[in-house]
């Protein structure tokens, strides 16, 4: 069965955007610093490998905020794979391209797994990830840990229940020292442990 995996870039101190993120400033102040590693997404090496894996996923689950902040990807995140947008309020206008709106997290996960077939499902955004975690439907996290301290901004998770969630580290890919230090990143993959 298709795995549901969160892909998220995060500062070492746990922030996924800079402060004051908005539609006009989707990554907050200074937050685009987090994406420097993507400059190497088409090169050999760990970042290229991880990005190739991203593009091999066969369905996308996104939260509404991320979806809107990304300008709805014009309906195509990659290769036209189906995009399931988890939202409380379905927009009135018809969804673009391969987008479907889903209000129930369990249905969202089931539909995305079915759509992905032999591939995996990628998750975008902290809101969707939290909803999936709460529902026991998030299987893995691939975190791109950037060697920077943002010091403020939006955190990956800060609204989970107080019961913590155990993970198992399954892979760590680290940028070779020879690469430009501004593009360094540590890709950490974790499996969510089921109780």
């Amino acid at each position, binding site marked *: 069965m298709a795995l549901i995996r969160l892909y998220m870039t*995060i*500062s*070492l*101190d*746990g*922030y996924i955007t*800079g*402060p004051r993120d908005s539609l006009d400033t989707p990554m907050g*102040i*200074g937050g685009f*610093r987090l994406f420097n590693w993507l400059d190497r997404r088409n090169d050999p090496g760990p970042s290229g490998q991880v990005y190739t894996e991203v593009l091999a996923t066969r369905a996308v689950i996104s939260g509404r905020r991320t979806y809107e902040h990304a300008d709805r990807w014009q309906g195509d995140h990659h290769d036209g794979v189906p995009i399931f947008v988890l939202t409380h309020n379905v927009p009135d206008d018809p969804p673009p391209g391969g987008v479907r709106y889903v209000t129930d997290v369990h249905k969202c996960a089931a539909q995305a797994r079915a759509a992905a077939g032999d591939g995996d499902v990628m998750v975008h955004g902290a809101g969707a990830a939290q909803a999936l*975690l709460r529902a026991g439907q998030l299987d893995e*996290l691939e*975190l791109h*840990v950037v*060697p*920077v*301290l*943002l*010091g*403020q901004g939006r*955190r*990956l*998770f*800060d*609204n*989970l*229940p*107080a*019961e*913590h*969630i*155990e*993970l*198992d*580290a399954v892979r*760590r890919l*680290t*940028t070779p020292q020879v690469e430009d*230090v*501004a593009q*360094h990143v*540590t890709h*950490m993959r*974790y499996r969510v442990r089921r109780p």
Partner: protein
Amino acid sequence: MSKTVLYMSMSVDGFIAGPNVAPGNGLGDNGQRLHEWFLPDADAEHRTGSHLAGVNREVMDEAMATGAVVVGRRTFELADGWGGDHHDGVPIFVLSRRQPDPRLQWPGVTYVSDVTAAVNMAKDAAGDKDVLVHGARTARLALAAGVLDELQIHLIPVLLGQGEPLFEDMPPDHIELELLRAVDGPGVAHLRYHVRTAG
């Protein structure tokens, strides 16, 4: 030359303690989970980590080879001052603007009001050895003053979801790091970073 190194256990989502940190609950609710890699049993002899092996042992040995400690007053008080001896009787410099608590004074403990002064005194005391920095608030002050050299993060595979972040409300000029070393031990990834820019 002596370096200042923050040693900190942190969850994957960036928390260094659970919620509701208070005296008697120094790591917050469930925060003990972050220290299980070197302290599986809350009653065990914790700071020497004598039961450790392999990578975890090596990293703990490095921390215990430091020649002085700089610690924030809050962390120091939550730990009851470690009875005046963090490890091997090395000098402890407590960052505080208030008068010392008479119950938390020992010969090796010095209260200092300024972070740069505290770091300079600790480096002098440590000689060739490194200085262990304890506490997120003190680390934040040291970063802002440009006197924190390295971060040794023990990244724990758990999502706390709530708690005390490593850093918050820092100035918006972010701080660039460089990964010096990454090693994986049982239940923890040790990531050591050099601070490239500060302030």
